[in-house]
């Protein structure tokens, strides 16, 4: 399955083993992640679904190095990101996050945004970085927007610029935290096809958090349904719909079957989390 695309990728395998994260909420410990283990092979699109506030983002932040963990370990291609004796992963351009509401720099043009990484890391000269940025933007269908500011683009296009800004750094992993949540259905489907196209070109490992089951099934090689807090994989679904996928698979019987199956698992957890009165987030 999907072999022609994944074979090329030898980088970006994430191993999450027994990760624990406890928050201190007003003196009371709250277990956000509990002995969570998940193995993501290099080049996989791994979709994480689960109730709001279940701790999915906590996991993503731990991989990105935005905060530490209280137990277990996370490795990237065998190298320990965080684990015993090293609670917080260092933040690095091998793992880049794209956030729900976007984090493009409003005061830089789209081209300057995309060229930012190589320039500040000094991996490329200013001129070369801009040239590369221009080329990547053209590849992603963003030609013509180079000299506009992010604020002048629709949120769908902004998210595309942001993904290109991440890819220019040649990351091992893309960490996407509900990047398309705020988009309307039409832009969303366009974003999905654009993201898959990007993946066909780069084969980058994608760790993708979402609430949208159709999005999860359409994009993912696997869909990981998380338990409500504390967070750990409840059930992992392998999506056996062959790539390249087009939007018409949404109406295929296999797609509907998977949707029903995953939905049953997710809904059960959502009800649990609803009963506990978990905050949105």
């Amino acid at each position: 399955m999907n072999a022609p695309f994944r074979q090329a990728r030898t980088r970006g395998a994430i191993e999450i083993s027994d990760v624990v994260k406890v928050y201190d909420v007003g003196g009371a410990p709250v277990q956000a992640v509990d002995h969570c283990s998940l193995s993501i092979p290099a080049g996989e699109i791994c979709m994480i679904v689960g109730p709001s506030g279940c701790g999915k983002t906590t996991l993503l932040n731990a991989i990105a190095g935005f905060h530490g963990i209280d137990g277990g370990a996370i490795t990237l291609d065998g190298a320990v990101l965080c684990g015993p004796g090293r609670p917080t992963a260092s933040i690095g351009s091998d793992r880049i996050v794209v956030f729900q509401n976007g984090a493009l720099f409003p005061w830089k043009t789209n081209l300057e945004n995309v060229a930012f990484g190589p320039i500040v890391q000094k991996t490329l000269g200013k001129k070369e970085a801009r040239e590369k940025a221009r080329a990547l933007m053209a590849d992603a269908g963003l030609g013509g927007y180079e000299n506009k500011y992010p604020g002048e683009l629709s949120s769908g296009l902004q998210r595309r610029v942001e993904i290109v800004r991440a890819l220019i750094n040649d990351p091992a992993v893309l960490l996407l935290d509900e990047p398309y949540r705020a988009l309307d259905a039409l832009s969303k489907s366009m974003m999905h096809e654009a993201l898959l196209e990007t993946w066909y070109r780069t084969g980058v490992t994608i760790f993708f958090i979402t609430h949208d089951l159709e999005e999860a099934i359409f994009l993912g090689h696997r869909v990981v349904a998380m338990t409500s807090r504390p967070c750990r994989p409840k059930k992992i679904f392998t999506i056996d719909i062959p790539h390249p996928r087009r939007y018409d698979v949404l109406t295929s019987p296999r797609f509907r079957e998977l949707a029903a199956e995953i939905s049953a698992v997710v809904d059960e957890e959502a009800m649990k989390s609803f009963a506990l009165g978990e905050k949105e987030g």
Partner: protein
Amino acid sequence: MTNAAAAQPSGDLAPRAQPGWLSSLAFDVSTRRAVIAIVAALIFWQVGSTSRAWLGAPLPVIGAVPSPDSVLRAWSRLLFDTGYWQSWMWSTFRVTLGFAAATLAGVPFGLAIASNPTFRGAAFPVFELLRPIPPLAWVPASIIFWPTQELSIAFVIFLGGFYTIVLNVVGGAAAIDVRLIQSARSMGASRATIFRRLILPGVLPSIGVGMEVAIGVTWEVVVAAEMISGGGSGGAASSGGGLGFFIWNSYVGGAYPDIIVGMISIGIAGYLSSALIRRGVARLTPWLRRA
């Protein structure tokens, strides 16, 4: 004029006959409303201030105000008066000096408070204790502290602008989305890069707002400081007194229309300096203009 003449724009009368002429002069709705409001206020002022003549006895308050036409006459006289222009010059000079000092000190101070928790812990409580003291309450102390009257006025003006700018910078820095900083860090940006490429441009709009409000405050302060201190280095001579002293001097000398001229002059000065700053900031923040 015949219909034919109106329909065929020929000769120099023709453009005026076109229907667009009135509407193009009347601008848009909001401009028209503003013009009507100002004219109405002027009429109200003229009628009220001349109430002694047509009513036999002056109306309370407005009956004691010099009439617009007397103000206009005073102004047309003052336009050729070097003392009046020197007042402008002195006040503008003092505002520029105090405001520049407030900006130069306030922006780095605010950035330091926003970006360094230790500095914030040490400096912010003192700042917050001093801030409620109105700048004008500093005038007597300032006259004692500073060797020259000019410096004491500049200091009071400085205080007027400083607090506003610092608060805006601190607020602006706090409002920068933490995810922008996380993104920059994950793309390999150093602390210095984050400061220079994220914090500075992120705070720039707030610096602009702070400066715009601060320049208004400095004009308020300069006028009062000049009145209280008796006009700075110029002393009693109107030349060095500035617009505040000009107003006060006009009051003492009984030239009441000149008071109003001085007041309107300050209004104009404040408006122009705010507009200048707004324009400058807009030029430095092109992403806001195009958004």
